C-alpha cells in the first residue's frame, strides 16, 4: 500500500458507532461457572470457591454456545464468521478486502461480578479505526466495544476488542 493512503473508506468511517449485535444470555448457572473454571485452570483443579459458590470469575463468558435472544444488524445475514471483512459486512458496509486477521488485544473494565441466576445483556458496536505500519506492512486496527449489564441494569463489563487486519 502506498504511503499516505488508507484502508478506511468514507463509508467505514461513517459507520463508526453503529450497533453490531445485542445479545441476552440465558440465566447463568452454577454449572456454567464450574465448567469455565475447570477449563481455564486445567490441568490443575480450580479454586474451590468456583465449585461451591455462585460468583463467576471476571473473564467468564455467559454467551457461549447459545443465547436466549439476539438482534443482529439486518445486513449481517449470511456473513461468514471468519471473513476478514466481517466487521463491516455485518453492518452493511464494504470492508477493506484484507486477507489476514489477528486478535490485536482486548481492554476490559469490570463492574459488578456475574452470579448464578444473572441474565446478562450485551450490546456491541463499532468503536473506531486506526492504522499502523509494521513488519507485515500497513495494518488496519478496528475496535469494537461491548458493554454488558445484568438484569438490574448494573454494569458488568465494558470491553474494547481490537482486530488487526493486513
Amino acid at each position, binding site marked *: 500500500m502506498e504511503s499516505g493512503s488508507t484502508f478506511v473508506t468514507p463509508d467505514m468511517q461513517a459507520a463508526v458507532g453503529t450497533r453490531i449485535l445485542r445479545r441476552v444470555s440465558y440465566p447463568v448457572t452454577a454449572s456454567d461457572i464450574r*465448567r*469455565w473454571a*475447570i*477449563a*481455564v*485452570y*486445567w*490441568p490443575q483443579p480450580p*479454586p474451590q470457591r468456583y465449585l461451591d459458590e455462585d460468583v463467576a*470469575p*471476571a*473473564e467468564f*463468558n455467559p*454467551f*457461549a*454456545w447459545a443465547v436466549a435472544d439476539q438482534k443482529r444488524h439486518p445486513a449481517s445475514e449470511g456473513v461468514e*464468521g*471468519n471473513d476478514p471483512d466481517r466487521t463491516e459486512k455485518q453492518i452493511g458496509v464494504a470492508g477493506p478486502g484484507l486477507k*489476514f*486477521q*489477528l*486478535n*490485536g*488485544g*482486548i*481492554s*476490559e*473494565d*469490570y463492574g459488578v*461480578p456475574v452470579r448464578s441466576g444473572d441474565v446478562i445483556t450485551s450490546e456491541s458496536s463499532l468503536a473506531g479505526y486506526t492504522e499502523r505500519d509494521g513488519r507485515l506492512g500497513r495494518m488496519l486496527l478496528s475496535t469494537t466495544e461491548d458493554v454488558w449489564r445484568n438484569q438490574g441494569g448494573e454494569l458488568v463489563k465494558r470491553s474494547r476488542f*481490537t482486530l488487526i487486519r493486513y
Partner: protein
Amino acid sequence: MREGDSIGQFRRRTGFAAWNRYAAVNSEFVPIHMDHEAGRAAGMPGAFGMGNLQVAYLHCLLRQWLEEQDRSGRVGGLSVQFRSPDTGGEVTATGEITQVGAERVEIALTVLDQEQQRLATGTATVELDH
C-alpha cells in the same frame, strides 16, 4: 507489597488439549485454533491458541497473587496486547507491580512462551478491599 515486586507466575502447558477445553466453554471453535493447515493459511506456523485463554491465565495469576497476599480484592480492569501466537508448549503468565495505592495496585503483565518470547503484554488494575 512494593513497586517492582513480582506477583509470581501462573504456568500451564498449552496445545490442543488445553485449547479444546477452552473452546468448549467459550464456544471458540475457530479453525486457526483447531487445525494446523488453517493456522498456516493465516500466515502462522500452524494452529495457535486463543488470545482469550491467555487473558484467562492472566486473571488466574492476579487472583492467585491476591490469595498469596492474603488480601481480598478484585480485578478492576485489564488491557492486553498480543505480540506472538501461542503455538503450543509451556506458557507462563507473570506480572510486576508498577504502582501501589491505598485502594488499588497497578501491575504490568507479560505472557511468555517456553523460549521466553513475549506472547502478550498488558496492564491490570487490582482493587483492594479494606
